């Protein structure tokens, strides 16, 4: 360290102030990012980007958001956020995927595209909603309630579930093969270790694997299987538990949020950041009050938004 300071101290003046004394030698770090303050400059950027990209979408989603409804409950230090995503159009047909490998096993399943999952009454599943700002205090009971493993099953020649969340360092990804053929699980999250794992048919120790993520990500990343190119899944890795994936009926809920104003991010695999009129870059702000639930109501999404 001293060597670097002597040579580079001039330009890295803030290095000299001893900021780096705390780096653990083995590099195991606590990931901590302070709350990101909305400042004037960022506001300008958001507006500019939004102005260019969302003009078309803006017209279509006018009147999109219901006024948040607040229900008061028992006095608790935490609040809750909920809502429901609805695909505002006829239920799109899910394209049949080309299954041309391991046909004797996988050919018998009706494997279809999972990138836009609309339920019978329009509910849109698999939309990620997650806290973007720093949460502050996380209630300790949340850690106790959260299982240490998140299951990613290879079953019927697809990944189940298709979308999942991992809270690091609390949770690990538990990958299992339930098929009579070998499976592969490959992903390379930015800045974290890439994985390319073979899972043999069960039973046996090589039919499962436990994977530990080392750092959080800003958005979900793709998981693929090199043996079966039609398979895909998305994993969101965050350093807090405040994330949700909309259920088959389109509803989502994030509970035990600390009181305060929070920024949330919305992401959908077909289009990435779910950018609508009132949510530049798929982001919105909500004031959470103790013991109350903020209900965003029904969020109607026009089909045009999903045409890529």
């Amino acid at each position, binding site marked *: 360290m001293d060597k670097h300071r002597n040579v580079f101290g001039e330009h890295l003046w803030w290095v000299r102030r001893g900021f780096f004394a705390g*780096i653990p030698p083995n590099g195991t770090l606590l990931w901590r990012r302070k709350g990101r303050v909305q400042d004037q400059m960022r506001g300008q950027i958001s507006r500019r980007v939004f102005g260019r990209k969302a003009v078309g979408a803006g017209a279509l989603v006018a009147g999109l958001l219901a006024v948040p409804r607040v229900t008061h409950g028992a006095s608790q230090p935490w609040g809750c956020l909920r809502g429901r995503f609805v695909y505002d159009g006829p239920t799109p047909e899910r394209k049949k995927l080309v299954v041309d*490998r391991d046909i004797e096993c996988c050919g018998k399943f009706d494997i279809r595209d999972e990138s836009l999952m609309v339920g019978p009454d329009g509910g849109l599943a698999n939309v990620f909603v997650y806290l973007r700002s720093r949460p502050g205090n996380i209630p300790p009971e949340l850690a106790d309630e959260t299982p240490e493993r998140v299951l990613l099953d290879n079953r019927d020649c697809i990944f189940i579930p298709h979308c999942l969340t991992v809270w690091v360092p609390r949770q690990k990804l538990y990958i299992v093969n339930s098929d009579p053929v070998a499976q592969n699980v490959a992903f390379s999250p930015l800045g974290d270790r890439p994985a390319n794992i073979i899972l043999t*048919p069960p039973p046996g120790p090589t039919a499962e694997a436990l994977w530990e993520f080392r750092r959080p990500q800003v958005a979900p990343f793709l998981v693929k299987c090199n043996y079966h190119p039609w398979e895909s899944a998305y994993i969101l890795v965050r350093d807090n538990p405040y994330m949700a994936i909309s259920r088959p009926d389109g509803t989502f809920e994030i509970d035990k949020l600390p009181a305060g104003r929070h920024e949330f991010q919305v992401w959908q695999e077909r289009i990435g950041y779910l950018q609508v009129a009132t949510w530049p870059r798929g982001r919105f702000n909500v004031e959470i009050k103790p013991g109350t639930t903020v209900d965003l109501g029904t969020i109607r999404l026009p089909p045009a938004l999903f045409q890529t």
Partner: protein
Amino acid sequence: MNFPEDRGFVTSARLWGPQSPGSTCRRVVALFLTLMIGSGCQEPPGASFRLNLEGRDPAEISSLAREEITRFLEELFGTPDEPRLPPGVDLDLGRLKQAAGHPVGDVDAQGTAVIRRGYYRRYCARCHGISGDGAGPAALVMDPYPRDFRRGIFVYTSTVPGAKPSREDIRRGVRDGLPGSGMPGFSRLGSDVIEALVDYVIYLAIRGETELLLIQYVVDEEEPLPLTVPFKERFVNEDIAFIASQWRAPEVEPDRVVVKPPSAPSFDDKQERAAWVQQGKEIYLSARAQCSKCHGLEGAGDGEQAGSLYDDWNYPKRSPDANQTEKRARLYTLPLRRLRARNLKEDLFRGGNRPEDLYLRIAVGLKGTPMPGAGGSPEVPGVLNPAEIWQVVWFVRSLSGQLPRCLESAGHAK
């Protein structure tokens, strides 16, 4: 990209080379050129690193964001002419400086031209680019493409899946080259030059990964601009420290990270050896190892997966939809290129064809490609044990007739 300074040196090197008879006049001209370059009076305008915009619409990045990213990266890593190191990154700055910059030549006591610094631009940048983006002037015509260092992923390694390569892995690539690709071996340059290049490649890789993270923070996450000191501190303390620790791991904890092939089995008995090859073949074809999926039943690289393989650099360029693929392709420097599974019958292996090399390829896989490691890692159990990996190695070698003839007479069926 052009290298006026480089051309000057090539001229003088050719004139001063021992094979060139050369008149006195030419020698004087060459000496003059060499001195000029040496004294720096032909110093070209400073080179700069190209911003990594792979897969991004350049319009989505404001000029302020570009400037901030460039300035902060320069603060941390310097320029291609004057490299710096952020704290926590353990590389030899002296060697880096030798490898960096424009090539500077000299004449030694025997009158032979020698190159004193600027090795990277002299030997590597034509293919790998000044920024290590694998998109140098010659990249387009190379197959496979030159490695883009900026993702910090190297394919031929001796480290467990998910780990960074060891220093020795990079050194081996530079020294011995990758047979069957455009990458030549540079052993003739001597160990000092190679060590400097190894440092410089790792420097470009760490810089490249840092850049990707920084762009993500500034562009995707809209970090307030100009970047604040607390942000920079966190970035160095957390992100760069994490990347640097990953690069240190193979040197710090070799027992956990680096795979050492157990010694190869040897056989006196022909029957025994043939049986070993046969077992390797069975594993090769088994549902457990899945080798034949890509490499084909006969090892000709024509398995059922062969048409749909892409490496990590090309995979994001494609999409199941042709229009979409075309649209995405415009956001990348080099066109989409499919990956071919190796034809094992050719006995041409990029990571080397010694049995230990093949053992490592099977045990740890090829990082950044669909080829997984069968030997497992501290976290993930391997699907093959060391003896089984050796059996597959023997089988693979037998495909190209690299085993003694006695094996065939002993009943080994191809």
